[in-house]
């Protein structure tokens, strides 16, 4: 695939060059594409192509989505640029990555703060990310899209509309069935205004904006809640065809960092806001540990998984939340082993899966467990991978074909594999 697109463009551009240089360039591209296919991790790629090789195996904190034709799209950050690449063989080989932002910017790339990718059924590729603007927790919520199948991306635009040099970070992106694109984030504009009045403001706030035209234009920014935690990813799941439910870490009583849930409408209405977890984690600190949430079989219920080190619950937990009664049920201690964290949920058909990371003192364990009855009962936890090198947070991606693991590791490179096909290693 690298050859088709890369060479077509190259042939046009280099028509006037000497035949010798054309032949040399063609040969190097063909060799590069063949070798890229065989590389397994970033070290191998860098040994072959040098330190500057651009690849999902080398880039930071990838996100993935699969389109209706089964093509895998990934976005990642490398050297102050957001990139997008695709794969037609489920992650064995990738196209040449397309650079999204021409001007370098400090796009964040870590477990809690990564570029996001969403695909529309009509072929739009929609991206968001956070760009860091100083060492003092300031940032901008950035957005770009492609309407030509990922060949070109629009110049990134800033979605937070306050014009303030303050915190706008930890973006999440979600497209509803009806075509409403929700962009949520953690925002410090209210904190700035409150501190300016010499009043205290624990944490930050949750804001969002909505696009009804696949990212061409966005609504005003809407506030969901004051006093959120400042440093944890926000989980998003559908509510009906137009709305979304979000789950985030909220500060209660100035000191407790548990989770809140709310339903957002495209017009900025926030409803059903309630406390979704009661762990009593009294902490004046950054957990850097956001939740995961997917829709359950009942359209008003959600599967949630999260981490806490609270007085009541310590470790990774699962529960099902019911919007109608505003209660959680089926609470389960998933893994209270020290080092366990960063759960991710996915539901495909009637099977619910959860992965998370454990650490046995020497190796990271990528663990999985399954439920076939909407979270009533679960299989025992199993190790999917063991690694004695660095790794990203694991993500589960639900596709038409099944649930895939999306996980960057130093040892195995970027892994995108259908869970059913993962061989334990």
């Amino acid at each position, binding site marked *: 695939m690298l050859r088709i697109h890369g060479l077509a463009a190259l042939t046009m551009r280099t028509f006037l060059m000497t035949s010798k240089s054309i032949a040399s360039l063609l040969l190097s591209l063909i060799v590069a594409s063949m070798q890229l296919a065989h590389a397994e991790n970033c070290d191998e790629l860098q040994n072959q192509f040098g330190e500057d090789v651009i690849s999902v195996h080398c880039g930071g904190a990838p996100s993935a989505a699969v389109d209706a034709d089964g093509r895998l799209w990934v976005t990642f950050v490398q050297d102050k640029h957001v990139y997008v690449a695709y794969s037609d063989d489920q992650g064995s080989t990738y196209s040449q990555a397309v650079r999204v932002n021409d001007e370098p910017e400090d796009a964040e790339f870590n477990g809690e703060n990564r570029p996001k990718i969403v695909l529309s059924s009509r072929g739009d590729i929609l991206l968001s990310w956070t760009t860091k603007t100083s*060492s003092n*927790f300031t940032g901008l919520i950035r957005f770009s899209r492609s309407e030509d199948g990922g060949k070109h991306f629009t110049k990134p635009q800033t979605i937070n509309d306050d014009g303030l040099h303050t915190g706008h970070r930890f973006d999440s992106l979600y497209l509803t069935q009806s075509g409403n694109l929700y962009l949520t984030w953690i925002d410090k504009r209210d904190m700035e205004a409150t501190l300016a009045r010499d009043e205290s403001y624990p944490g930050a706030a949750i804001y969002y904006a909505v696009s009804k035209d696949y990212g061409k234009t966005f609504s005003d920014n809407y506030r969901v809640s004051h006093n959120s935690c400042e440093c944890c990813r926000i989980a998003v799941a559908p509510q009906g065809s137009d709305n979304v439910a979000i789950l985030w870490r909220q500060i209660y009583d100035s000191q407790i960092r548990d989770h809140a849930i709310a339903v957002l409408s495209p017009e900025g209405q926030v409803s059903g806001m309630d406390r979704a977890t009661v762990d009593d984690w009294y902490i*004046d600190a950054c957990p*850097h540990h956001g939740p995961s949430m997917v829709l359950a079989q009942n359209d008003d219920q959600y599967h949630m998984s999260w981490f806490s080190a609270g007085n009541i619950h310590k470790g990774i937990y699962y529960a099902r939340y019911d919007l109608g009664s505003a209660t959680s049920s089926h609470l389960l201690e998933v893994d209270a082993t*020290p080092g366990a964290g960063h759960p991710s949920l996915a539901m495909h058909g009637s099977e619910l899966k959860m992965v998370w990371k454990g650490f046995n*003192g020497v190796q*990271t364990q990528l663990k999985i467990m399954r439920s076939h009855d909407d979270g009533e009962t679960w299989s025992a936890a199993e190790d999917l991978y063991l690694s004695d090198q*660095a790794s990203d947070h694991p993500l589960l991606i639900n596709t038409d074909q099944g649930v895939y693991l999306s996980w960057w590791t130093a040892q195995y490179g970027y892994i995108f594999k259908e869970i059913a096909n993962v061989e334990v290693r």
Partner: protein
Amino acid sequence: MLKFVKAAFAVTALLSVGQVHADNIQAFDSQSFAQIKEEFAGKPFVLSLWSIDCAPCRVELKLLGEIKQQQPDFPLVVISTDLLDDREEALDILDSYNLAEFESWMFADAFVERLRFSIDPLWHGELPRSYFFAHDHSFESHSGVLSEQQLGKYFPQLLE
């Protein structure tokens, strides 16, 4: 290996244009914590862990910087859980709290789970995180911003 890394830092610091503050950041690997305990053998000390991305950590760094200004011998070790790639940024922050001239470390490896485990298997990675080590190196841990009163419990001279 560590000496080599430290020497490399020193060279980098000398070559950096506009590098004005002290650079005492050392590379923290899975052996470093044992080295720190050896350095404080038979002595109490405070270990404070922070990261560039942690807002509450700045409150704690400010307090620790003030303490070190008043009592330069206060037994403090500061460790940033950021990777060494971000050393310049970490150094600027430490310098702004008058901590750049004191003992300081940064994670040398992206396999942060292993480095965290080498300090305390029960620590989940939340920041700031601090430890009070007694003379015999029995310890108590704390998650969240340290107060002067908490420090004073272990080091009464701070409250005098």
